[in-house]
């Protein structure tokens, strides 16, 4: 387990995956406050929303962003 301690979950990786329905999807890796990492899979709508919220031009720009960016603009 990664020993890095942080206050809350952050995105540490992002790549493109293939969804069950044949659509491309965004597979994020989040590191949580306990140091554990886990994937979070987003559909196109949520994935593009996240990129917009983060001001991300490409996947690499998502690294280091807070999980909170996933919620913005969805309500």
């Amino acid at each position, binding site marked *: 387990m990664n020993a890095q301690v942080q206050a*809350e*979950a952050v995105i540490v990786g992002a790549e493109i995956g293939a969804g069950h329905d044949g659509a491309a999807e965004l597979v994020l890796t989040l590191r949580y406050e306990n140091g*554990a990492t*886990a994937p979070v899979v987003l559909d196109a709508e*949520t994935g593009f929303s996240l990129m917009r919220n983060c001001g991300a031009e490409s996947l690499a720009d998502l690294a280091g962003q807070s999980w909170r960016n996933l919620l913005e603009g969805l*309500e």
Partner: protein
Amino acid sequence: MSLSPQRRFVTPEPDESIEQLAERALPGEPVAAAVDRIKSWNLHIFAMRRPPGLLLGGDVVFVEPPRR
């Protein structure tokens, strides 16, 4: 064979709000902070669902972060 420990979860009670669920799942924590943590551990409900945050009777709601 005994079951290996897995990530703990609860299921919503009928008509339970996220605040009520957070109080039940994380007793002793300030509600706002507890809700915040529950959200971060359950993005399948709070980011991927339409409308976001709609609690369903069949939901699995994690009450801790991933273990690995």
